[in-house]
């Protein structure tokens, strides 16, 4: 041992120098690359060859699109090299181009971390849902989508011992739960692997069985004895109310509860659990409602301005003393563009609405031309 430690000590100075030199060289090489790429960045050229490489903006390549029900599909994505992984139950924000315009939406990851490194989301096409319909019906393997790292705290505790679980899912609210279950009970050719003695009850609410994404997975888990499955098909059995729930799950109070579904159901559950003094973990992908109107309150970083529906935001803000970037004042020079984080504006030239919903627009908001846009409801402008 002594010898080894001596030799390491002798080696260490040169060892320490070598990486430093290599580092310096690679830094120099990178600087040269940046110089040659100017005014672009080296990344702009590297993206031509490998958009999923380490160091690139996070993206993913569509590998497979598999239909689940008539209007839902599972999309498997190979994420870029910098994907940091996720915990089952978390969601990922996906940026996808629909009719040439980039939109962002959040979807639950429907698998635990997989051996093949792919991630999957399951999307239900909602009526008039531009993005979801595109994902379910038009997305083809090979396409590149934009990603953000997984996020969300709708996850199981790290130590599962001693817990009994209840999972209430409604509609596409099953997606984060299926991610958890698949991780808890992997399926092999021999069937469901129950690797931990767990007591899980899943209450699944849907209009009908054919409407239920993942119903076959849930049923086979139940058949294998991994979970207790309670289904409630509202089309034939009516709405699920709390009394019914208590009846269906007698040991409700002992179970650590998770719920994912529409706002109505979650609100009802939440108030019941609050009243009982019990914890409830919920997840909801709520379409933030943006109320549109004629005119509205426009919030800037330091000031809030009332703007009429027929007046450019630029004029309203300037009259209230907000220092604004401006240019031609007729919509042609793009010198007044600012990001709208939230809210709605109307193009005064043709009446077209632009809506920014938090969570759905890109991280930078939607850039709008303030000289030809009037407030169409409350707006938040990042300026």
């Amino acid at each position, binding site marked *: 041992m002594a010898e080894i430690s001596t030799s390491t000590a002798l080696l260490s100075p040169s060892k320490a120098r070598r990486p430093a030199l290599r580092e310096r060289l690679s830094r120099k090489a990178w600087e*040269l690359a940046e*110089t*040659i790429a*100017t*005014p*672009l960045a080296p990344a*702009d*050229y590297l993206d*031509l060859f490998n958009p999923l490489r380490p160091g690139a903006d996070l993206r993913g390549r569509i590998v497979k699109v598999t239909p689940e029900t008539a209007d839902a599909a599972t999309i498997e994505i190979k994420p870029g090299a910098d994907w940091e992984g996720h915990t089952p139950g978390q969601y990922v924000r996906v940026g996808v*181009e629909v*009719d*040439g*315009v*980039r*939109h962002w939406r959040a979807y639950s990851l429907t698998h635990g971390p997989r051996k093949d490194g792919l991630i999957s989301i399951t999307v239900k096409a909602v009526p008039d849902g531009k993005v979801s319909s595109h994902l379910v019906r038009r997305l083809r393997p090979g396409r590149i989508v934009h990603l953000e790292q997984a996020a969300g705290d709708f996850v199981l505790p790290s130590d599962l011992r001693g817990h009994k679980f209840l999972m209430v899912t409604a509609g596409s609210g099953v997606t984060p739960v299926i991610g958890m279950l698949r991780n808890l009970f992997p399926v092999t050719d021999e069937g469901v692997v129950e690797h931990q003695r767990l007591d899980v009850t899943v209450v699944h609410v849907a209009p009908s069985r054919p409407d239920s994404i993942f119903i076959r997975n849930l049923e086979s888990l139940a058949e294998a004895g991994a979970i207790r499955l309670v289904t409630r098909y509202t089309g034939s059995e009516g709405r699920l109310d709390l009394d019914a729930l208590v009846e269906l799950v007698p040991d409700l109070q002992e179970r650590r509860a998770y719920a994912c579904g529409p706002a109505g159901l979650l609100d009802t559950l939440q108030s019941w659990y609050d009243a009982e003094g019990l914890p409830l973990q919920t997840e909801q992908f709520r379409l933030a409602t943006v109320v549109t109107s004629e005119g509205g309150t426009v919030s800037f970083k330091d000031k809030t301005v009332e703007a009429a529906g027929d007046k450019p935001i630029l004029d309203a803000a300037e009259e209230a003393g907000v220092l604004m970037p401006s*240019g*031609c004042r*007729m*919509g*042609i*020079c*793009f*010198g007044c*563009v600012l990001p709208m984080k939230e809210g709605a504006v109307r193009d005064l*030239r*043709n009446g*077209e609405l632009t809506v920014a919903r938090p969570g759905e*627009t*890109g991280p*930078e908001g*939607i*850039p709008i*031309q303030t000289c030809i846009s009037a407030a169409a409801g409350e707006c938040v402008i990042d300026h």
Partner: protein
Amino acid sequence: MTIAPEAPAYTGPIAHLSREDVEQLGRELDAIRQDVLDTRGERDAAYIHKVIKVQRSLELGSRAVLLASIFPPAFVVGTVGLSIAKILDNMEIGHNIMHGQWDWMRDPKIHSSVWEWDNASTSEGWKHSHNELHHTYTNIVGKDNDLGWGIMRVDEEQRWTPATLSQPLMNFINMCIFEYGIAAYDLELGKMRRLKKSGRDMPEGWHEMARNTVKKIRRQAFKDYVAHPLASMVTLSGPTTLLANVTANFVRNVWTHSVIMCGHFPEGVETFELKDIPENETRGEWYVRQMLGSANISGSKFLHLMSGNLSHQIEHHIFPDLPSNRYAEIAPKVRALFDKYGLNYHTAPMPQQVASAWHKVLRLSMPNGFFESTNVRNAPSQFGKLVKAVRGDTRTRRRILKEFEAAGAASVGKAV
């Protein structure tokens, strides 16, 4: 829209139009614009993505080939490729993205607010002088600095001075170093020099803009004239790579200058006096000014691409924020409106337009009437007078200029 009955009638090339006609024309153009907006989508996005991809691959490929430019074929291929790549970056990509034509895609990288081009002028400065000043005040003498870039006389109504004689030479030099000319123009160097002379302060923010421009020029020049040739030294191709880069920038300068000259300078394109612009110019009136103040280049698809679709300068000036790939599509509709309203849709092949623009530069470098009244026979005496006008005092000059003007008018009258 109510039209004030006391508003004076139009004059000049739109004298035959009523105010209601002009507003109706505006509405018809708005409809064309709306048609494009309604159908704007995946096809257009795919187009700009493809052009960007082609440009980057071409630039990268050309620079790679130039690493071996000591071999003549590699030099030729690399230089041609790099020239085309630089023109694409400048015209179809940079110019149009900075116009906000692709902002609707919400791609944070292909956006007017962040795009930077391979050019001496900063995108920030250029967007102000080009998008804002030039596109708002198109062809208004004294307001639109693009008209002659502040260094040329482009309209009979502008004063002739002896210095004006040098403008063909000035224009030629400007063509060779066009990107630096534009940078100087964005910084309004001429005006700033006058301000400085008279001891006044520079406008707020000017110094920072100037610093940014110098920084940009340094980076661009270092890339083309130091870093890239240096990298080629490995194969002894340093000097040839330097030559290739100088050539590519020169070719780009000559090309962009020529295309841009075709946009507003050919003979017959209208210029406007500030006093003739209505105080509250309506949308229709603004459209008409754009229509009459611009000229198109006819030609192949490749020409349209390489000119950044500024070959559709008329359509571009009417709708500066529509995606460039749509200009060719809407051109027939726009032209039909010109015909319907009896306006002159100014278009011609590139050599013709370039020649016409140069002709105007030459013609206006001389006093008004000089060209019209000069022929082989009287040339010596005409030039004698010109010399007198240059050398003489203000009164003599004014007298001679008047004589030229009268002679010019007379000879035009005779011809008629």
